[in-house]
Structure formats: structure tokens, C-alpha cells
């Protein structure tokens, strides 16, 4: 394979940027769906019903999984190479350079936390929703209908430790995106000195909107399940 997407550093960064951008767009969409669960649990379940295991939802799942997988594999390839390029002998003294964000130096670690959260999330939700439908069953292991997403949210976030774990997960994602969202523009060359402050501001806003949207669902279901239609 002699394609620049796999054998040149900038080509690999392009793949990182495109998959990252795709994941950001997906996650914005996912977050908007989730917020529905606060406003109207019935409405949320209607979305769950609609997506379920239809061909378009399944196709979406496959593309999404591929996106995460490619992003993940490239992240490892790039970071390993960077580690090697740094050399075996490290500086005895280092400083935090001016204007360098902590997140930008810890993208892989943050990514691993995001991935761990993602796996837990697949176990908590996906395996009890879409997977159940794919298997052709009508109730999941908790005895709910696979389209009753609201009940699943209520059940999961009635347990405090899931609330804590999910919040940590969202925080890692927040850090990852405060750097990732402007970095993806830089990687394809759509940035300059005028736009850096703007792009960084946009990145912070996007990351924060995503964080707040997801966190709101978790917190509302934990602290005031009544608003979310539990009583």
C-alpha cells in the first residue's frame, strides 16, 4: 500500500482529522437526541423506536464503529511513532510552554478514557437496545422493551456510581474536544493567525455544549426523576 493516507505523516493526520470531525458531528447529533429525554421521555422513546434496528440505523452503526476504529488505530500508530521520535533520552527539566494547552499533550490518554467510557456505554445501553432488536428479541435483560430508552436512562442513572463514571467520561471528552475541534482544522490547513483565537473559542463552545447536553440528562435523571416522567 503506497497511499499517502497510510505512509505520510500529514496523510495520517488527515485521516485523524476527518474521522475526528465525523465523530464530533455524530456526537452533536447524539447529544441533541438525548436532550429530548429531559423534555419528553415519550418523545425520546419515539426516537428510539424510529432508529431501533432498521437498516439505516444499522448502516449508521457500522459506519460509526468504523470511524471510531480508524480514529483509534491511527491514534495509536501516530502516538507510537511520536514516542519513538522523541528519543530514549528525556529532558531532566521541562516546563509548560506558553500557550500550550494541557489537553493537546494528552490526547491519547484522554482518548483511552473516552474509549473506556464508550465500552461501558455500549454495555449499559446499546446491548440492551439495538443489540436486543438485532437478536430479534422483544425484552432486554432488565425486562424493558428495547425501545424504552427513557426507562433505561432512569434505571442506569438511579445508581450514583454510574452518574460519577459518566461525568468523568464527559469531562475527558470535553478536554479531548477543546483541543481536537480546532486541531482538526489546522490539520487540513484551514487555519491562520486570525482564525486561531476564533477556532479555539469555537472548540471550547462545542466541547462545552456537548458536555452540558450529556451531563444534563444524567443529572436530571439522578436528582429529579419526576421531571423526567418517573412519577
Amino acid at each position, binding site marked *: 500500500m503506497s497511499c*499517502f493516507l497510510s*505512509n*505520510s*505523516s*500529514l*496523510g*495520517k*493526520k*488527515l485521516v485523524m482529522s476527518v474521522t475526528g470531525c465525523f465523530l464530533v458531528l455524530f456526537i452533536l447529533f447524539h447529544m441533541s437526541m438525548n436532550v429530548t429525554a429531559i423534555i419528553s421521555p415519550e418523545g425520546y422513546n419515539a426516537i428510539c423506536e424510529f432508529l431501533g434496528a432498521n437498516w439505516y440505523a444499522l448502516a449508521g452503526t457500522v459506519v460509526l464503529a468504523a470511524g471510531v476504529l480508524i480514529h483509534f488505530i491511527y491514534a495509536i500508530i*501516530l502516538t507510537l*511513532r*511520536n514516542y*519513538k*521520535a*522523541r*528519543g*530514549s*533520552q*528525556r*529532558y*531532566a*527539566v*521541562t*516546563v509548560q*510552554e*506558553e*500557550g*500550550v*494547552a494541557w489537553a*493537546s*499533550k494528552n*490526547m491519547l490518554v484522554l482518548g483511552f478514557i473516552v474509549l473506556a467510557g464508550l465500552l461501558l456505554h455500549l454495555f449499559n445501553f446499546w446491548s440492551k437496545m439495538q443489540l436486543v432488536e438485532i437478536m430479534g428479541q422483544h425484552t432486554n435483560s432488565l425486562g424493558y422493551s428495547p425501545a424504552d430508552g427513557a426507562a433505561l436512562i432512569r434505571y442506569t442513572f438511579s445508581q450514583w456510581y454510574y452518574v460519577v463514571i459518566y461525568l468523568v467520561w464527559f469531562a475527558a471528552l470535553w478536554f479531548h474536544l477543546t*483541543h481536537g475541534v*480546532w*486541531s482538526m482544522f*489546522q*490539520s*487540513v*490547513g*484551514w*487555519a*491562520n*493567525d486570525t482564525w*486561531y483565537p476564533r477556532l479555539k473559542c469555537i472548540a471550547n463552545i462545542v466541547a462545552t455544549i456537548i458536555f452540558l447536553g450529556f451531563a444534563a440528562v444524567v443529572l436530571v435523571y439522578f436528582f429529579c426523576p419526576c421531571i423526567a416522567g418517573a412519577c
Partner: protein
Amino acid sequence: MNFTLKIWRQKDAKSKGAFETYKVENISADTSFLEMLDILNNDLVHQGKEPVAFDHDCREGICGMCSLHIDGQAHGPSKGATTCQIYMRKFKDGATITIEPWRSAAFPVIKDLVVNRSAYDQILQAGGFISVRTNSVPDANAIPIPKKDADESMDAAACIGCGACAATCKNGSAMLFVAARVSSLAKLPQGRVEATRRAKAMVAKMDELGFGNCTNTGACQAECPKQISITHIARLNREFLSAKFKD
């Protein structure tokens, strides 16, 4: 002023190095950092010891020969200055100063604080030039160049090839250097002709020599003595990707 220096000593490329501690005394505040090292070396020679090897040439911030990682920063604590341009008044009297060579896989240590930076020369040889017939001096106004382009080109051309960018980068990436060279030539009509070939050739060489992948941390521009901006890295990315998509 008095200082305690923790200096990396390494006999040659193959030996294992270690820090050694030295004391320098009665240094005037207006002594430059390199002069302070000269004074140390003088003392060492008098004591019959091996002087500390370090790179330097112009001592006025234009040749890119001096290096040194001083107290955790490439070219020491001053912003926008090379090691030869910093003075001891920047440090506290009595301070302990740690001096290390550039650390990057592509810049192996040759001796003490001297590293081999020929990797940057090889990247330049791969495409950091323009091909023109050089006989008589051309008319200065034959090719008008917009002020903005000339300015941007000159900003990038300020790069002195010192290696601080790759030495600072946690990924050992040479992107700021390569970007500065690609950008300064791509912005001018004389360099534009070979711009795509140049971007591809220089990036390929940089990858081949084992430099890392840029993750846009921006540490390079913070430590670059010529304050080259990562906006040039964005231009390199554009030049490279559009060249590849045209292929």
C-alpha cells in the same frame, strides 16, 4: 553573580552521559550565557579538565548554531531569543541552572551539549531551494510582489534552522522548520513554480528521517527564537494535501 551549573556531559555519541555539577563565580550580570560557559571552560582548562563542548558561531542570533535546553526551555528563558542572545541577568543570583542538549531521536548527541542537526540540512536538500539561472542581477521590480505576501514570506524566512522546534516538541516533530521553509518560498512567485514538488519532497524526507507527527500543541512556536507562527504549518498542510489530491 554566582551560579551552580548542572551540565550534561557525554564523551561521544556511543557513551552514556550523565549530569555533572560545576560552580561559576563572580560573573557580571551583563555576561552572555555563552560567555559564562566560556569562563567555565577556561577554568576547566586551567584545572586540566576537559572543557564542555557546545555549539555556537555568530553569537548574534542569526546563524542558528547555538542550541541548549536551559532549565527546561530551548534557548533558555527569554522569548524570541537564541541562547547566544540571553544574559546572566535573566537568572537569579545563586541559582542552579540545568543545561541539556537537544533531545530528539533525529538529533543524536555527538559530545556533551553538541547534537547532530544534519537531519535539517537533509530536509533542505530535498527541496528547500528554487531552481533559477543565476547570472546577472535581475531588475528589482521585474516581478511585483504584494507587500502582504512579501511580509509573510520574510516572517517565515526568519527561520535560522536551529532545531529548537523539534527539540521542544513532545512528538519530536520538525513541522515548524519544514513549514517555515515551504511557506517562505511558496509565498513568492519565484518559489511558487516548484511549490508542490517541494512540499511533497520535504515532508517525505522529514518522515524518512524519523521526525514525529505534529499534533498541533504549539510548543514549537512558543520556543522558536524567531517566533515563527504555526500558521505556516497550516499552509504546509494545505500545500501538501492539495498536491496529493492533484496526483
